[in-house]
């Protein structure tokens, strides 16, 4: 298990390196001069020179690249041009909100989605199954920002049960109060996905011989469903959980915008609008690290759930 963990960890290094390089290249292939893009056409050559100096753009590209890599390792991502704050501090300030939102949405989505899938699979082609199918069809189609806006209009604006915007004061209850609507939005989409996935995986397992054997030897229906069925369907569900965590993370960008909630997604979108390149770079980096880490955790989860999966 330890060796396994070690091999996987080593394996993420080239991936992270490749991601960093892509981020760097993407930020440099921008059409036009970033200094002109930020300061506008009316900027004097002196102003442009000062900006290039501040942003480290006055050295050769290879040195910029090395600076960027070194800065990432030492957690020095430069300063925001718009606010003058260190990018690392901006990230540290926003990150907890995004993590809070994603985690609450994941928990909500799983405790609704997986049981829905079990109900659909055990009532195949009956009313509950059709209901779950309709729910997942809508969940697959509805854009998260639309659902977010609808919830905001109904429960925020009209019923006034929940606050309209923001992340809440730094106490647990107020934070919880602010996270409910954004999290329900993302959980809805997640539950639709997990419900359908659980149904498919369970139905596949129900076709196996050992389920028939379990029934034949007189195991109770609950034992067949949960002990023999769901347990063996966990591997595809865990994969789906990982995939949909990433989807939830990208969904959080739009949801943070709708609810005017602090977070990495909104930090990134605001930075793009203001062409605040060092913040864009930092935001992109955080998402890239999320992707790599979640994939790593998924790989490790497989080994825990199914010991047959080993590093080749």
């Amino acid at each position, binding site marked *: 298990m330890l060796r396994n963990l070690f091999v996987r960890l080593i394996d993420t290094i080239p991936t992270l390196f490749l991601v960093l390089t892509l981020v760097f290249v*993407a930020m440099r292939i921008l059409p036009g001069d970033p200094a002109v893009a930020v300061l506008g056409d009316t900027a004097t050559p002196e102003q442009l020179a000062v900006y290039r100096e501040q942003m480290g753009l006055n050295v050769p590209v290879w040195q910029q690249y090395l600076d960027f890599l070194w800065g990432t390792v030492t957690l020095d991502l430069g300063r925001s041009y718009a606010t003058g704050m260190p990018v690392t501090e901006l990230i540290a300030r926003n990150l907890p909100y995004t993590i809070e939102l994603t985690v609450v949405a994941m928990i909500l989505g799983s405790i609704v989605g997986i049981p829905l899938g079990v109900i659909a699979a055990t009532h195949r082609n009956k009313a509950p199954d059709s209901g779950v199918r309709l729910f997942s069809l809508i969940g*697959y189609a509805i854009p998260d920002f*639309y*659902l977010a806006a609808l919830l905001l*209009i109904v429960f925020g604006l009209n019923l006034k049960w929940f606050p309209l915007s923001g992340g809440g004061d730094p106490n647990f209850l107020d934070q919880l109060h602010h996270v409910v609507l954004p999290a329900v939005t993302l959980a809805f989409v997640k539950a639709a996905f997990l419900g359908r996935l659980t149904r498919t995986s369970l139905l596949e397992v129900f076709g196996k011989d050992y389920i028939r054997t379990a029934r034949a030897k007189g195991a109770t229906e609950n034992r067949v469903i949960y002990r023999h069925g769901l347990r063996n369907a966990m591997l595809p569900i865990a994969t789906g959980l990982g995939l949909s965590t990433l*989807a939830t993370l990208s969904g959080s960008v739009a949801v943070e915008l709708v609810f005017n909630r602090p977070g990495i997604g909104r930090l990134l979108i605001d930075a*793009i609008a203001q062409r605040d390149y060092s913040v864009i770079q930092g935001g992109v980096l955080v998402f890239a690290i999320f992707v790599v880490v979640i994939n790593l955790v998924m790989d490790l989860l497989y080994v825990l759930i199914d010991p047959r999966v080993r590093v080749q």
Partner: protein
Amino acid sequence: MSVVAQEPVTPGPQPGPLTTLRTILFGRPEAKFATVVVALFIIIAAIAPWIAPYDPLTQSILAINKPPSTEHWLGTDLYGRDVLSRLIYGSRNSLLFGFISPVLAAFFGTLLGVVAGYFGGIIDRVISRLVDLLLAFPELLLAILIAAALGGGFWNIITVITIAFVPGFARVARAQTLAVKQDPFVEAAISMGVRTPVIIVRHIVPNIMAPIVALMTLWVASAIRLEASLSFLGLGTQPPNPSWGNIIRDGLQSLFGSPWPIIGAGAAITLVVLSFNLVGDAVRDALDPSTAR
């Protein structure tokens, strides 16, 4: 993928392509519903200038955030523009991006996948590594990252959505090519000295098209969603041009004014994406039975 026992092939009249298409599109009741909705939206997009009651860009200070009425069926937005007309014109954007990007992505993705699968070796290793890396990112996240670098505008949005979809096609095309490459007719062509480009175009590509086309139809819905999301985030279609995504963006700015732009545009996106998903499912089940539910 593997077929264990082959059914004896009964020679008989093959159904024509049109008959097959009709069975796919009008077979199941839900597919029938979806086909009708899709057709309706295509017609609306095509004849938008003739059916839209107002110009989608004309502002009116006298009619800001009006609720639905007989004059304005879905009311007006924060600039006094007619919401229904903006929705009708917005359908053009959604459908254009929805159709163009998956086709382009299928082309480039298939190219990459076939090259990787056919030649193998270092080419395959490089392409596969890159594809795996890009596939690790959710499409929306990838699109946001590329859009951050490229900015808005028609061709930039097409590029963004296309790049976000290419890795998926490349992976499928590569796997299919690896399978087809083993087939006797390809080995025969190689030993007869047929030139490599000819083998790829005449023998490989036609035999891997079914799953590619199935994927392409499924991703029309994703492309429409993606364009709407990007426009909502301000990275897609730029105002004042209407797109379903930026109609919702504008609507949020005047939340206390009128909720109708949001409700209307969101319902349109949901209905169209739902319908394209259903059509895509039907096409996939017909073309690629191995993945059928």
